[in-house]
């Protein structure tokens, strides 16, 4: 997994609450058997008209936001379907950091599996940063220090320390869990005795 440490970019602000994963990547693009190539269809229905032309009003179709690596959005971002195609589409577009006041649980976890940092901060801080984004100036994210720096301001953010470590080091959590194979085996042996119906063999 790609490591995440520091990031500098002009952020794009999408002032919509409850952005669901169907909006992030609609179902017609879930037929792929790959993780890559979804970026061009990110926010497809808001981004393109019926003829497939870019809708000029949409923030990610405007320069310099079309190059943004940071997306600021309304609360409850990523609700709905569990599709990991949503973070894959963000990543493929180039967005590796999302800033919102809250996220749906499954989406939030999926981000960390793909080297994307979802930052949670209070609504009033969202307001400050989104207003700042109108200047079209770069902001900085420092994961190690857990802060967002914009102009002369900075905002601290909280996150789970284990998730932070995995992002900074780009750890493969399957490999980490496989290191505990012996524990899993012991658990399975006990389970076969205590709940023999689970394996049903």
């Amino acid at each position: 997994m790609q490591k995440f440490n520091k990031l500098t970019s002009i952020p794009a602000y999408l002032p919509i609450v409850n952005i669901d994963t169907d909006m992030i990547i609609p179902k017609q693009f879930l037929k792929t058997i790959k993780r890559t190539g979804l970026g061009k269809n990110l926010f497809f229905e808001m981004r393109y008209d019926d003829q497939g032309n870019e809708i000029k009003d949409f923030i990610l179709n405007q320069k310099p936001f079309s190059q943004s690596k940071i997306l600021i959005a309304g609360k409850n971002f990523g609700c709905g379907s569990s599709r990991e195609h949503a973070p894959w589409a963000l990543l493929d577009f180039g967005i590796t950091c999302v800033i919102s006041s809250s996220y749906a649980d499954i989406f939030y976890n999926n981000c960390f599996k793909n080297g994307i940092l979802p930052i949670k901060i209070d609504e009033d801080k969202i307001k400050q940063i989104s207003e700042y984004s109108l200047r079209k100036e770069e902001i900085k994210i420092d994961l190690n220090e857990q802060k967002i720096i914009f102009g002369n301001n900075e905002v601290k953010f909280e996150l789970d320390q284990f998730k932070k470590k995995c992002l900074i080091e780009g750890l493969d959590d399957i490999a980490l869990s496989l290191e505990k194979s012996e524990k899993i085996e012991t658990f399975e042996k006990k389970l076969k005795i205590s709940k023999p119906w689970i394996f049903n063999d």
Partner: protein
Amino acid sequence: MPYTIYDKIWNEHLVHEQEDGTSLLFVDRHLIHEVTSPQAFEGLRNSNRKVRQPKLTLAVADHNVPTTDRTKGISDKESKIQVETLDSNCKEFGIQIFGMNDKRQGIVHIIGPEQGFTQPGTIIVCGDSHTATHGAFGSLAFGIGTSEVEHVLATQTLVQKKSKNFRINVNGNLPIGVTSKDVILQIIGKIGTAGGTGYVIEYAGDLISNLSVENRMTICNMTIEGGARAGLIQPDQKVFDYLKDKPMSPKKEKWDKALEYWSNLKSDEGANFDKEINLNGKDIKPMVTWGTSPQDVVTIDGKVPNPKNETDPDKKNSIERSLKYMGLNSDVSVQDIKIDKVFIGSCTNGRIEDLREAAKILKDKKIANHVDAMVVPGSGLVKEKAEQEGLDKIFINSGFEWREPGCSMCLAMNADKLKPGERCASTSNRNFEGRQGRGGRTHLVSPGMAAAAAISGNLDDVRKYQN
């Protein structure tokens, strides 16, 4: 110390716990489908990893399958590749799969219970947010991403942090014409789409325990629409009767031992719930959604909201955006909303009892001339049962199409979809923008309400149509 059902299941599945609470949990049951699994298998191959417990995983293709004549296979090239990829992955890794022409094929959350694969006290996961459905059996069931699917395949475990406990008590009786779909829509309207974020919900109260197992599944299914990954209900005799003699249920001495364990699975007196709310059945009416989020609910005798009455700017913007997308004016009575299509099916309402409920309303009636309506049974076995009971004839005689099982127009990945601007009364679970087809407009309702809408051609009150 008193524990909740969730606490108990969590504790019994702990393989390892780090100091910070990050835990490795054993997964008893893993369901997979064609959309969220191919990249997981690809990951296994790239890392030379095996599936640790192939017998604890069950596969089925449901999202992409056609609901029309299947003898010609799948015409959409990408859908075909995805379904074939699931077949070949299962063959390669030794996982049981119900193929498209197997009568046990159906929506993943319908076939799990139907086969007895779903059992109380287990942890059940699937790369699908509606995995919460299985909580109706007293299991901890939740949706996961594809990276986690790969993790479960490789290790039979999952890395998790514990959620908080949230209990929703529903007491009293349901008025005639009001169903468990209306109960869950009302709950989502009350708590909002993020109201359950960070929690596991336990549904309790005498109204819940008086519901059939299938009706409970409808409630647990839409838990995710209230933001909670899992919702569960204490297992009882109805659940045990449902599971008895199912193909994958425990047999003989194992059944006895399982039953003893299942019978004791309940939240202890005095167990701590971080959040708790109460509802009474008498206050619940037939519900319908007017907007583009499942929390946008109104009773069938209500009106479309007016953004002018909203002071919170986020909510005001959100109402305005939804009204524009839905092509609705404020303050219109919802019963004056004309519909074009009706969809009965999905993991929310595609079971035999749902079809019976709709058929009861449709018997000896015709649907409105301008309405296109279809029924998509949740599985081949549901379809077979419905045909044995003659429900297919009732649907067909009233003007409905009778289809093959699958997810169908709940998410419109196959050919079943709304055209831009088309309006649908749907028994599915999400009314998001574009969910049932680009520009399509969805109103979520119960199966009886969908039948009533089909007859009247407008959203309508099922209570007028009680046969």
